[in-house]
């Protein structure tokens, strides 16, 4: 039996510009701290693309979008920079979010 993982992609905007490389590890740590290990493993969030300095795309397992949206509410600083993260849009394909981001953040 071949099991195929189904993903959802979440476009997240930050209130302040952020370093793309540092972001990935920091987001994982914060989400794991707030969601708990069980939810974190179920969601398996990964930063997969950045859309300019203020937005990025997070890939999560399907069905855990709401948990991740909740987790982002509690993130108030990244690398000691005060920041607010807003979940803008979710989609089943990364392309549609990249299209949306290219229009929204031009």
């Amino acid at each position, binding site marked *: 039996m071949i099991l195929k993982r189904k993903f959802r992609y979440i476009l997240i905007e930050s209130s302040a510009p952020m370093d793309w490389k540092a972001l990935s590890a920091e987001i994982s740590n914060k989400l794991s701290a707030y969601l708990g290990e069980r939810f974190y493993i179920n969601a398996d969030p990964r930063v997969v693309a950045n859309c300019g300095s203020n937005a990025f795309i997070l890939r999560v397992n399907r069905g855990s979008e709401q948990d991740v*949206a*909740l987790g982002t509410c509690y993130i108030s600083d990244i690398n000691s920079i005060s920041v607010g993260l807003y979940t803008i849009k979710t989609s089943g394909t990364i392309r549609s979010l990249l299209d949306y981001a290219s229009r929204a953040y031009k």
Partner: protein
Amino acid sequence: MEFYDIAEMNVNNDLSSRLGYTKIFGPGDIIEIDDKQKRPDSIWIFRGSNVGEISRAIKGRAIGIVMDSFAVEKSIIEEAAGYGKIICIDAGGLCKGERWQIRKKTITAKRIFLYAMKARAEVSLITLAKQKEGLLSSMQLLALSSLLGADSERSRIMASALGRFL
């Protein structure tokens, strides 16, 4: 469904539409949040912690209340339900502070929500953000509503409750 939010700062229309709201009301807009109605033409939401003042506002012209104390006052919730007023929960406050404060505030908000549902009162979540960092998108607000115990339909009704008065 159109979603609305109230902040303590002005948010431009671009950002509010990206966040999924029809409008985020700020200072100077038609909705005013204060302990007394300062502009007679505004839609007034009472904000305070004094039980007597909250009760007076419910009987008066306020369309809703924001309880600053976060104490669960069953009588106030029942009174608000009786007069058809909205109970606004400060969602921004639920996400800020130390971990133990977040837990305590969320559990209290959950109890307020459950009492409100029992009393058939209308509940709304608003962010009351003072800075851009304090804002939440409509998707995050729906996630917080479900954390309080609302199903998806109820969450959407909560996020659009203010629209009834516009």
